[in-house]
């Protein structure tokens, strides 16, 4: 469990946040750019110092201005994944992953981690020879290699294209689950929240405005649907009594025929983020023949 109470003031911007994140879960810190998400992450990592407050992780004090405690980033048992990967350009994939590992059995761990992300055979490649998706996979397992108590991810997928991003969201979730890590994941992408989050904290202008499960936070109620998909509305066509709504999820389009009154009642517009679900009828699956 991580408990955070922090205040920091700059010229024209103030950060004042209090929250807890549950152990062994993925918590997403969500908000528009400029809300202070990355700063919160950097403060937790010890890369920046808050004016006041405290950070507690699993009974250990990482920061407490009243007691003048400020544990260095090296001592905080964290893994940090940067938006722009931050792989060491002069080291191979293998050496990057092994960078933070000390013990003798590291060679085996490193090998396992590399195979986990499907990069066996790339051990001796340099970061410049990898694609964006591959780089971020390496950065992820490099951060996991030390088995950190807390994994911090700062918009790790935002530099990638749609397709790679969708694939990596699944991978990231699987890897974090596999290590049963506690993770704090920063993003400004709603669909990423739905795909990854067990718990969401919404940050706006340096303050926590909402927190809860993704459904609590974004819909204000729990959905009991048989099937649901989150995405962005890209098209609305009205008929006399029905409307066709098209949403984009990752790189897939979903179309649904919905009561026009309901659409008008929501004031739905192209560009809105929505969750589309179906609950009354049976869900049908079609097998794709290849």
């Amino acid at each position, binding site marked *: 469990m991580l408990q955070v109470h922090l205040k920091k003031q700059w010229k024209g911007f103030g950060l004042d946040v209090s929250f807890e994140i549950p152990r062994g879960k993925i918590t997403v810190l969500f908000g528009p750019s400029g809300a202070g998400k990355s700063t919160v992450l950097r403060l937790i990592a010890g890369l920046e110092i808050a004016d006041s407050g405290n950070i507690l992780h699993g009974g250990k004090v990482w920061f407490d201005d009243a007691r003048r405690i400020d544990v260095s980033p*090296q001592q905080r048992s964290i893994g940090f994944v940067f938006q722009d990967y931050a792989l060491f350009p002069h080291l191979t994939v293998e050496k990057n992953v092994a960078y933070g590992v000390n013990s003798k059995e590291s060679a085996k761990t490193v090998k396992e981690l590399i195979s986990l992300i499907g990069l066996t055979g790339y051990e001796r490649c340099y970061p410049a020879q990898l694609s964006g998706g591959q780089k971020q996979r390496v950065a992820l397992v490099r951060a996991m290699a030390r088995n950190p108590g807390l994994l911090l991810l700062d918009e790790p997928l935002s530099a990638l294209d749609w397709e790679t991003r969708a694939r990596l969201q699944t991978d990231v979730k699987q890897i974090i689950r596999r290590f049963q890590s506690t993770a704090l994941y920063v993003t400004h992408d709603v669909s990423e929240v739905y795909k990854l989050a067990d718990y969401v904290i919404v940050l706006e202008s340096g303050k926590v405005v909402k927190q809860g499960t993704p459904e609590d936070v974004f819909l204000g109620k729990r959905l009991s649907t048989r099937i649901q998909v989150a995405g962005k509305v890209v098209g609305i066509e009205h008929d006399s009594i029905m409307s066709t709504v098209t949403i984009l999820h990752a790189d897939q389009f979903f179309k649904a025929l919905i009561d026009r009154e309901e659409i008008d009642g929501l004031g739905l517009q192209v560009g809105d983020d929505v969750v589309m679900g179906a609950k009354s009828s049976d869900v049908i699956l079609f097998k794709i023949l290849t």
Partner: protein
Amino acid sequence: MNFAAPLILTLKLSFITTVLLFIVGVPFAYWLAFTRLRMKFILESVIALPLVLPPTVLGFYLLMAIGGGSFIGRWYEDVFNKTLAFSFQGLVVGSFFYSLPFAVQPFQASFTAVDKRLIEASWSLGRSRLYTFFAVILPLSRQGIITGCVLSFAHTLGEFGVVLMIGGNVPGVTRVASVAIYDEVQSLNYGTANAYAGCLLLLSFAILTLVYFVNRRFVRTL
């Protein structure tokens, strides 16, 4: 008079100065690159002074600082039983300060250019500042380190004013190639002067070619 002696002395002086500048300049440049001290610009100006000052001015102050009348000069005489001024050791001191900006500035620039995220990534992976320096910052600053060392070497090679002020013209001790040229011309030995000048020209050209070659290669590979 041995023709090679001033040339060997010049190379010896350049080599020792470069090694000293590397040992002292690297930590100093690291500190300059990462300190948050507001007054660091004053220190940077002091280091850059030899770039703009006439060598005779620098030489004059250094002579005052290490001469027999100064504290340092007297201390040196007491301990080593000889003067620091007009000795080879004195020349090393002078060359060190004279070439300081040529080492520190490229070192500092290359340290500053290392992506801050890489340093933070190293810290977050549990590695100390010292480990991070040797494992990340130094390897990524190769180009600046090589440039700084080679420029220090080349600059010391061509030093004249400072050497003459604090070293004089003692054959085999402080008579470096640049001083020998001046001396030979004074004695109207244009042939010998020409030979020394040619050697210095070739050496300097070779060194600069190396710097530009190294820089070009690094730009291409990174």
